[in-house]
């Protein structure tokens, strides 16, 4: 508990204290700044989109990794973690060299919102895969056989038997993925170009407040991010419980 406090609670409290140091008007001023507001909108919007994509793709990738057999599977299993393990600034460089001005693929995402999307998708890919994978591994194929013997098609079996088992893991991965998405800095700072109102994300905004010496404003943006992250985690958890229970008890 002391460890947890030192590591998490005290820094969090410090941010809130710092932000409230300037009183409510610091919040109001910072949040009514259209550049900041655009940054928050972009960050949260893109993160939500990426998270939704991850929930689908991550589940499919986990499925392939657990159920299918193909040469190079072990390698793929290893590679999945690279976006996560890579220092984010290195990830940024990778993305810049692939999709930047002199892209070998002929794809030019530099200074566009797609760059933000791409960078966030890149670094958050492993989360859902890694939460769903162990649940799939634990799940007995007997359960699917039982559903089949009772007359359920593969689609019905997936929807009514497999998916409800995976839902908690998918949503846990989604929370992690979303939280990581809204806080992303290193991987997108190079490719996105940080154009105000266009491709500037919240963490970059916080950075520029700090560079400008306005720590109170930086802290209040940080507090907003904190609240958004908390809200997201809590609501994802609630949705997960709802979905898991929908098919459950009688009634």
């Amino acid at each position, binding site marked *: 508990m002391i460890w947890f406090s030192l590591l998490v609670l005290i820094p969090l409290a410090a941010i809130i204290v710092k932000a409230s140091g300037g009183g409510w008007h610091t919040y109001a001023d910072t949040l009514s700044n259209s550049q900041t507001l655009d940054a928050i909108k972009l960050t949260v919007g893109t993160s939500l989109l990426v998270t939704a994509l991850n929930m689908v793709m991550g589940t499919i990738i986990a499925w392939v990794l657990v159920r299918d057999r193909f040469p190079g599977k072990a390698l793929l299993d290893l590679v999945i973690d690279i976006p996560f393990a890579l220092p984010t600034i290195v990830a940024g460089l990778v993305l810049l060299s692939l999709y930047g001005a002199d892209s070998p693929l002929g794809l030019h995402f530099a200074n566009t919102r797609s760059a933000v999307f791409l960078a966030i998708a890149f670094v958050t890919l492993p989360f859902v895969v890694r939460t769903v994978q162990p649940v799939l591994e634990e799940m007995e194929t007997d359960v699917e056989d039982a559903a089949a*013997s009772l007359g359920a098609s593969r689609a*019905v079996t997936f929807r009514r038997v497999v998916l409800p088992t995976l839902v908690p893991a998918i949503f846990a991965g989604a929370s992690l993925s979303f939280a990581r998405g809204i806080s992303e800095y290193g991987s997108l700072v190079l490719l996105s170009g940080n154009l105000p109102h266009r491709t500037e994300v919240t963490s970059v905004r916080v950075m520029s407040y700090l560079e400008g010496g306005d720590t109170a404003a930086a802290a209040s943006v940080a507090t907003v991010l904190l609240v958004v992250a908390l809200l997201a985690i809590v609501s994802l958890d609630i949705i997960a419980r709802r979905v898991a229970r929908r098919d459950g*008890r009688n009634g």
Partner: protein
Amino acid sequence: MSIEVKNVNKRFGDFVALDDVSVSLPTGQLTALLGPSGGGKSTLLRIIAGLDSADSGSISIEGTEATHLPPQKRNIGFVFQHYAAFKHMSVAKNVAFGLEIRKKPKPEIERKVNELLDLVHLSQFANRLPAQLSGGQRQRMALARALAVEPTVLLLDEPFGALDAKVRKELRDWLRRLHDEVHVTTVFVTHDQEEALEVADEIVVINQGRVEQVGTPDQLYDAPANDFVMSFLGDVTTLGGELIRPHDIEVDVTPGEPGAIEGSVSRVLRIGFEVRLTVLTDVGEVVTVELTRTNARRLGIAEGSRVYLNAVLGATRV
């Protein structure tokens, strides 16, 4: 015949799971597929269910050619060793699953589920989750779930294998009584010969991918077709170079009948009402003999006693 299996072969890589298996399972009966682990009996059951496919050969169920039918279309009920419960659904929902898939009207589903839960004595647990049930209760739920769709045949794969000895015995009696009530053609896989002998109308002994013998429990026990069936269905020992059951040997302390095999007792082991002797014969054979405590006392047998062994009249020998 309800289930007709013809010339079925199945390999997993180099391993031959089923080697040209043909067997007919009668309608309305309780049949056991008995054999050691890895002998192919579960594979055969899964092929009948359509959960695995045969490399060659054919399956028909109640006269319907089923070889290439998917499990959904075979109208079978399947019970798994580890219950295969739908963990996120209540007991009632588990049982209702097959009926909901078939889009039966709600009142009918409810009536049928209640009826089945009654049959398996789980009515008071209808709203619990499977995790809140004991192993035996979970398996009864799985059985109700399989029976809900009114299957042509009910297939059980080591249904009591994961349960402890006492519950296993209870459930096995209960399965027998249930079958006498419901009369659905039932096939169950077991490696426990006692279970098969006690419950089944007919036993198919399967070993190393082949059918060794088919018959009633009495036929198999009294007239085993070969060494394997003889030794798999009960304890065996050798007397005069033949396989014989230890309780089919008569012990005497005086040389009575001619042809008796002479030896000395090397070990006496008492297990409840039963006394187990290890006898070393003069020709160097080690024979196990079982007799009742009363008999052993009457004969005054102890370690080192000289004894004369004879097969009893009508003993099963191979």
